[in-house]
């Protein structure tokens, strides 16, 4: 079976399966919401049902988006089949180019290989799955809603990506036709791959710079963050319940440690600047002086920058002093080391690298 046949079969299966899944999900969500509302109105949950996430609406949106993506996927599969037919017949030594070309016009790859960041976002958002627990309904429902929203935004983004690949496919086809008309069609599979890569790269970059793409990706980033936040809230609920340290508590500790370290560094600096280390190597101006307020009044260069030519070889005369610090400086350094040896947890170690 050819790649595009696989793709077609995959799309058909996805369309049918997805439709059934979404319908079932919509029904389930509606039933869940109605149950929760009834539960609430019966007084079991005093803080109104209005606060509950509207899962039915969210899952309905997801189903609609899923259908749109499935339809687009079917079109992409057709386009892929057409592009595959354009590939010149077998040519020795070009199996890699041929394989790469076939792979790169497979719509599944367009969704899987061209949205690296979206995948990264999803990976970052992956976390605990839903559990069959009902004592923290709202937390779970919020989690589920966030998951549905992320899926929907993911699919919406995939639609944009897929459209971008289809534009690339059409542009490639047009370019190929134009070259063929001039008798300059690529004469091998590798040349065909080169042309495809060039056209698709340009097309994808144009897509990435579009407002719609940037907006969609920002939305995806936001919803993946939201899912993560909600997951954490749930995890912290259980952490608190069972006496495990939570992320918030650990962050508190980290903040404290960072602030303490900052203070220690500042104190060390004050000690050092009051000692002989800096005196041994004074800067041309005081070390801790405030920035001159009138610095912006400096004379701006009245000419353009000097453009320097990098030389092929440089012959800088050697200095007369040795490469290592002069004895006096080395002594000072030793003294400094001795003083610094008292720092808590910080030693100046001469470790060999490389």
């Amino acid at each position, binding site marked *: 079976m050819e790649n595009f046949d696989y793709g077609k079969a995959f799309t058909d299966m996805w369309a049918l399966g997805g439709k059934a899944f979404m319908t079932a999900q919509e029904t389930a969500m509606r039933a869940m919401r109605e149950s929760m509302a009834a539960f609430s109105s019966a007084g079991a949950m005093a803080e109104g049902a209005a606060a509950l996430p509207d899962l039915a609406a969210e899952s309905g949106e997801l189903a609609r988006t899923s259908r749109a993506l499935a339809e687009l996927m079917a079109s992409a599969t057709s386009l892929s089949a057409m592009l595959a037919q354009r590939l010149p017949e077998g040519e020795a030594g070009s199996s890699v180019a041929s394989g790469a070309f076939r*792979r790169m016009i497979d719509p599944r*790859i367009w969704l899987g290989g061209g949205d690296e960041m979206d995948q990264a976002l999803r990976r970052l958002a992956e976390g605990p799955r839903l559990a069959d627990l009902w004592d923290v309904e709202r937390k779970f429902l919020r989690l589920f809603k966030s998951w549905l929203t992320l899926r929907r935004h993911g699919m919406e983004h995939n639609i944009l990506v897929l459209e971008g690949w289809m534009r690339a496919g059409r542009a490639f086809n047009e370019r190929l036709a134009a070259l063929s008309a001039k008798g300059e069609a690529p004469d091998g599979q590798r040349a065909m791959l080169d042309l495809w890569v060039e056209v698709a790269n*340009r097309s994808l970059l144009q897509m990435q710079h579009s407002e719609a793409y940037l907006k969609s990706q920002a939305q995806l980033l936001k919803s993946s963050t939201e899912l993560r936040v909600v997951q954490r809230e749930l995890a912290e609920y259980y952490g608190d319940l069972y006496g495990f340290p939570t992320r918030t508590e650990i962050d508190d500790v980290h903040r404290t440690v960072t602030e303490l370290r900052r203070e220690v*560094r500042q104190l060390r600096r004050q000690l050092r600047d009051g000692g002989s280390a800096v005196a041994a190597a004074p800067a041309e101006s005081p070390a801790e002086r405030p*920035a001159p307020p009138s610095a912006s009044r400096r004379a701006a*260069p009245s000419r353009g920058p000097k453009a320097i030519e990098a030389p*092929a070889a440089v012959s800088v005369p050697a200095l007369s*002093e040795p490469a290592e610090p002069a004895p006096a400086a080395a002594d000072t350094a030793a003294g400094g080391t001795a003083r610094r040896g008292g720092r808590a947890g910080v030693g100046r170690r001469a*470790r060999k690298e490389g």
Partner: protein
Amino acid sequence: MAQQGTGAQPAESGEGGSAAAKPAEAATTGAKRAGKEGAGKEGGGKQGGDKGGGSAAAMSGAARMAARFMRGTRMMSDLRDEDVQIATTPKDEVWRSDKVTLYRYRPLTERRVRTPLLIAYGLIGRYTMADLQEDRSLVRNLLKLGIDLFVVDWGNPTRADRFLTLDDYVEGYLGDCVDEIRRITGSAQVNLLGICEGGVFTTAYAALEPGKVKNLVLTITPIDFHADQAEERLGFGFINLWTRSLDPADIDRMIDTHGSLPGAFMGSVFNMMTPMRSMLKYNVDMLDVMDDEKKLLNFLRMEKWIADRPDHPGEAAKQWLIDLYQQNKLVKNELELGGRRVDLGNVTMPVLNVYAKDDHIIPPSTSRALGARVGTQDYSELALPGGHVGVFVGGRSQGLLGSGIAEWLGKRDA
């Protein structure tokens, strides 16, 4: 933001630079090069006419391809991770604070420049890019030209470091490194060489502590984060555009949630900038180099560097993305570190600003903006061929970068 966008054999051919250089054509470079080789080596392309001859050529091409593949597979199976070494130039740890380490490189020749030079990379990617391999190493080139060279390694920040700020890195750690070098060497001032985000650190430090900085060298450093809008080359400055498209509150929330700007996340942003690259990288491009040990090792060294993506400490990442990328505070002299305003007019020491002509990550216009804002008349620019990474590891700029910097410093060492 030195990371990504490199070709299969960047250190060998400098394609890391050119591939990254022209994103609109980026991914074609490797394929075209390979295509030419393929046509020659594999008998690719239609030979026309004689079907029998064509068939023989086809068989021969297939046999060569198979042999090449076999050689490559054997080589890959023989290689171990320890065979792929980067940053091998000998150096000694001379100071450490928290996760930050200051190293001093051992001299390779007699010293020719009196003032010591400190290399500061950013928090996105690692300093090891400046010393990727022996024959593609800014570090070695500078040592060979008699520079007394130090480098600061920021370590691998974790979530525990999420509250570190740019203030901590610039005034704190970098400042401590400078003072330590002054103390060790007895030199009143140091030369600073900042790379990418590290260039922002060194620029800010030089503005805050001009008396301690003899000369400032910047490489691929963004100063005006909105100057990308003047670029008309497709794909250049995408990170600038992408960051501006985000709501600052969403950036805050994302970083608070993850506790950092994850290195893997930034890696995927970089990959987006050359969308076709990843699709060719591990098949077509890799196949082109896998039967040549030298090229294969070059490829794997670059992979090793790319894979080493530390997470960017959270609070510092917020400042980087919101204060700088979104609000452009550095060029407006509005950035505040440790309660002090960073005024570029205070950069009164000589400045050498090195940029890559085809840098799509830090477009030249974003770097060159510095020239009109520094408080020195001694401002020079060095434009090098290649892209963001290629300028350090590409063949075309390899001989120019180190010698250009060394000569410039040598003239200002009095």
